[in-house]
């Protein structure tokens, strides 16, 4: 079953077209890595999926339902469920500094429960938060504040926080790019451990080794289009396009 379909997604900033028509689909439980050089449109694609940028045209379909559709020059149509279909882990973590770890996890679900009738109970939210903290290995940091944590720990909290909303598709925007090299391992291990048949993930990354190991599929984005797409084996071992070969060999130097 297709959990995600993206049809002809385009995004312009002023006169510069950053995404020039992206088509993509993902099966439930699939892990997709997006690689490519900076400025190629990877991050913009992820931001369009999380509605931090509004695509100028195209469609985003989650589990068969169109959650976002836009035509050039018209106001985009976005369904109320669109936002929470996706979760995003930022490069800069973006934890809420005034809340401790468990409060960071609980804030958004608590507010959501308050908005709904018969919303989730506080005890249930707390139980889920504690379980997710255990998943990312930070149970003992529940009452620590973000400023007391290492970058790697902060990013693991951010991952747990995103999972609290149970998104259909969890996105990672270069999750290790602002970490010291010795801290990337712990974050990548957590992401790898999340992989199961239920959890669909899209990872924008510069960690080629990681992309190769964790992904079911890899796409290479260059100049706003999907230049190449395939299994990690295909993309990394036998790149077809000149651009991808150049990109991969530049990384090895």
């Amino acid at each position: 079953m297709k959990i995600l379909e993206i049809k002809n997604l385009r995004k312009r900033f002023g006169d510069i077209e950053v995404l020039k028509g992206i088509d993509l689909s993902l099966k439930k439980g699939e892990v997709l890595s997006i690689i490519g050089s900076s400025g190629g449109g990877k991050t913009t694609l992820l931001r369009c999926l999380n509605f931090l940028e509004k695509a100028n045209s195209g469609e985003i379909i989650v589990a068969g339902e169109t959650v976002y559709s836009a035509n050039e020059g018209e106001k985009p149509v976005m369904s109320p469920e669109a936002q929470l279909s996706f979760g995003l882990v930022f490069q800069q973590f973006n934890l809420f500094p005034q809340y401790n770890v468990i409060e960071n996890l609980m804030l958004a679900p608590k507010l959501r429960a308050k908005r709904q009738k018969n919303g989730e109970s506080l005890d249930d939210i707390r139980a889920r938060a504690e379980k997710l903290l255990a998943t990312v290995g930070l149970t003992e940091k529940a009452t620590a504040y973000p400023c007391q944590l290492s970058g790697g720990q902060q990013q693991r909290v951010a991952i747990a926080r995103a999972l609290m909303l149970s998104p259909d598709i969890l996105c990672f925007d270069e999750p290790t790019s602002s970490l010291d090299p010795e801290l990337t391992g712990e974050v990548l291990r957590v992401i790898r451990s999340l992989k199961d048949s239920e959890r669909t993930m899209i990872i924008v990354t510069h960690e080629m080794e990681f992309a190769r190991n964790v992904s079911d599929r890899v796409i290479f984005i260059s100049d706003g289009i999907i230049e190449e797409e395939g299994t990690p084996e295909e993309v990394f071992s036998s790149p077809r396009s000149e651009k991808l070969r150049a990109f991969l060999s530049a990384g090895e130097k």
Partner: protein
Amino acid sequence: MEQFINITLDLLVGFGETLKIFFVTLAFSLPLGLIIAFGSMSKFKPLAAITRAFVWVIRGTPLMLQLIAVYYGPGLIFGQMLLKATTAVYITFSINYACYFSEIYRGGIESIAKGQYEAGQVLGMTKSETFFKVILLQVVKRILAPMSNEVITLVKDTSLARVVTYYELIYFAQRYIKNAGLLWPLFYTAIYYLVFTALLTFFFGWLEKKLDYFKA
């Protein structure tokens, strides 16, 4: 000695009048400043332009002139006083300080990283939830120092209220010059201001410590 105690107590009554201006002004100008700040940051350009022009006029003219305009203006225009001195003072001070506060708020709000808003959005929080639950406390922490400056300035600006016949501390002290030929009560008022600003300084220091548990 008895005279000293009597004058001290009398000036305390005058200082009570001063404190009324101080607290009423804060009660209105702190929230009003936030509304003005939102106005000046509005994406609706005409609203932003009007708000900024208003802030410019208020910050660009003397508070004393504003007091006179609000209190005596209606009388000059309509031939009849509309406001009591107390009301005129409260209104003028509140609007004047709200404009100064709004600029401090605006600076604070604009200094918060975009990522905080984005994190709120992707977690499904509404814009107002994100502002009140995430952004606001970080703004408060950042603007504490400039706010304490303004608040301390307000303590002393209250003395301007006497130009529209609002009887506050300085007025109380000046009466002793006219009525008893005593000059010292006027200088003695400084103690009241100093003690009160010391209390405020302690309060802001305490608040700063209280918010020291996080970095933003």
